[in-house]
């Protein structure tokens, strides 16, 4: 402890999640997870799907003082069901004590959440499973070298969309798909907005039922920005309106930290400019048409919110 105080000018805030994981420098998902874990505490079992975070626990190390189960890409929510049912059986039969219970948290990337994990996720919500689901959305298959996923934004260059127009598809609206299931709670979050994130996690910590979170996860290696700028990228995504922070519960949709009105908020291109995956929109010449399309989609989203 003394050592720590001596080195205080350089010491980092203490997080429950251990350091030295194999995650990339500047990983936005790790920022989200650190804050969430600090609030949920170590009596948490993470049920993980194949994705970047699979490599957090590599034998014989783990950064988690609590528990961890790696399942497969498609079935982490089903793994959570088995844990919840198993713990409930043990509790009901008094084979473990009430204090032995665990918060069950699914951790998947967008590849699993937007794609092959949808069936298992839909099933978990339909059964009103008592769990938290964190989708760290880095908008592509990050762990395999950043190919496009159903979460990739229009125009982004990925390892499988290398043309001058980038990814031709549009980011799937997972929020609305999940919302249609009427879970107990549903929100988007960002590690770059820790106060909003902390408020939401604190609110749902002791809430029952499915609590669904889609976390903005800036990815230095996939999005091509310097790892020191993760928070800046995250903040700009919210400020320009590209990553709306919102929550849905009991039939009510609320936006949190709304960006300034159109014209007064930063244009989306300020957010895009920071990322190499959008370089082709600016060089060798500006792709005015595509930039206008991207800005137009963001503006229309917020216009609809205002109405």
């Amino acid at each position, binding site marked *: 402890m003394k050592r720590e105080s001596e080195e205080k000018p350089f010491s980092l805030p203490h997080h429950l999640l251990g350091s030295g994981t194999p995650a990339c420098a500047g990983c936005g998902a790790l920022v989200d997870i650190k804050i969430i874990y600090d609030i949920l505490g*170590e*009596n948490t*079992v993470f*049920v993980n799907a194949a994705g970047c975070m*699979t*490599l957090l*626990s*590599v*034998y014989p190390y*783990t950064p*988690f*003082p*609590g*528990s*961890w*189960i*790696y*399942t*497969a890409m*498609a*079935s*982490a*929510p*089903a*793994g*959570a*069901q*088995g*844990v919840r*049912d*198993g*713990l*409930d*059986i*043990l509790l009901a*039969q008094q*084979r*473990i004590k009430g*204090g*032995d*219970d*665990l918060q069950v948290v699914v951790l998947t990337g967008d590849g699993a959440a937007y794609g092959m994990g949808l*069936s*298992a996720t*839909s*099933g978990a919500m339909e*059964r009103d499973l008592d769990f938290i689901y964190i989708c760290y959305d880095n908008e592509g298959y990050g762990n395999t070298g950043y190919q496009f996923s159903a979460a990739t934004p229009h125009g982004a260059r990925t390892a499988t969309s290398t043309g001058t127009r980038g990814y031709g598809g549009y980011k799937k609206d997972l929020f609305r798909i999940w919302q249609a299931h009427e879970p107990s709670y549903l929100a988007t979050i960002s590690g770059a907005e820790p106060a909003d994130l902390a408020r939401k996690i604190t609110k749902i910590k002791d809430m029952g039922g499915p609590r669904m979170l889609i976390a903005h996860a800036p990815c230095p290696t996939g999005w091509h920005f310097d790892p020191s700028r993760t928070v800046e990228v995250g903040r700009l995504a919210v400020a320009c309106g590209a990553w709306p922070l919102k929550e849905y519960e009991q039939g009510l949709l609320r936006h949190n930290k709304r960006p300034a009105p159109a014209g007064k908020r930063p244009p989306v291109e300020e957010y895009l400019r920071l990322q190499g995956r959008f370089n082709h929109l600016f060089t060798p010449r500006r792709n005015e048409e595509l930039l206008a399309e991207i800005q137009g989609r963001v503006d229309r989203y917020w216009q609809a919110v205002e109405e």
Partner: protein
Amino acid sequence: MTRQRELLTGNGAAAWGARLAAVDYLPVFPITPQTEIIETIGRWIEQGEMAATMTTMDSEHSMFTAAGTAATCGVRVMTASSSQGLLYGLEMIYAVAGWRVPLVLVNVSRALSAPVTLEPDHNDVLACRDSGFLQLHCATCQEVLDTVLIAHRLAEDERVRLPVIVNLDGYYLSFTREPVLLPDLATVRQFLPAPAASPAMPLKAGNPLSQGVAVLGGSQYSYFRYESHLASCQALAVYEELGRDFGRLFGRSYQAVEEYLCADAEIVLVMIGSFATKAKAAVDLFRRAGLAVGLVRPRLLRPFPAAPLAAVLAGKKGVAVVDQNISVGQGGIIWAELAAALYNQPQRPAILASFIGGLGGRDISLADFTGIVREMERAIESGVCPAPRLLYSERELAQMHGLQDLASGGALKGEGK
């Protein structure tokens, strides 16, 4: 010990196995011909006759995942599947076996698509052959019930700690009613204690546990795979021990390999599952005709009971393996495995012939068995092993040609012949 005799289907017997085993948890998903198992258990839970939690998942992939994570928590888990469902969840079959969690999966065998069909063969369960799951194959409804009980104890044995598949044939066993003795609960509890009051390695607060973690490098990976292999090999002796223990308590003992009139047999048929009962009936007829034919039925396929099979087949003139599966491009899977088990035996049988039959529920008739025995007699006399045979009759072929004519609207009339 009170005994209650019931007329049960194979599926009903599997359900009774779960009930008597005091299974805590069943993640399920319906598939023909397994559904009667989960319907029966569901009804018992509804009516308060069975205290278990049953959760219907969105798929078999999810179902096997939930089974594995619940077993990680330390509850007693059973689930059931068939065919396409088993293969849909195959990724998790390998995964949960690697987790070394005890659970029982009842598979009601059904042939695989394409073409899609409902009746049985063993390619579904054999697709799980290399996963780490143990495999126990049943021939009668009584054996299904008893094997579910044995399987739970085998899976939970600390020398094993591997999940177990209990296999029964769809339709031929799943929907066939046979008289089954229901063991009384008190004796069952002597054989298989209630689920542990305090699980050995529970997933709970204050007891952090990491399951299914990644390894980097072949050395660590090999270590864990070898460990599973050695545990599976060890399960053979454990099974034999449990089979004897079961016999002591219930009067029905089980061995890894069932022998029927083998001691003096010159020709031995090797089969698994319910179709082996057809072979048994054929053996009775051959014996009446003075032919020295016997039957060997491995109950275990994983671990493969190589030593007991080699012992019983030592010195036999001819062994005919009737595989109810086909490894396309190779042939019969059990034939190949048995050949590997016998090759280095000094007294290995002179002739080890392969016959494939019963695919997609095709009957293996007395005529088929007679043909096999005649073939074996010729082989023994000539010393030349026949090429692998695909059982099919002239009549079936003619019928098939008729269907092809229909399917082609007559356009191909005669071409297939």
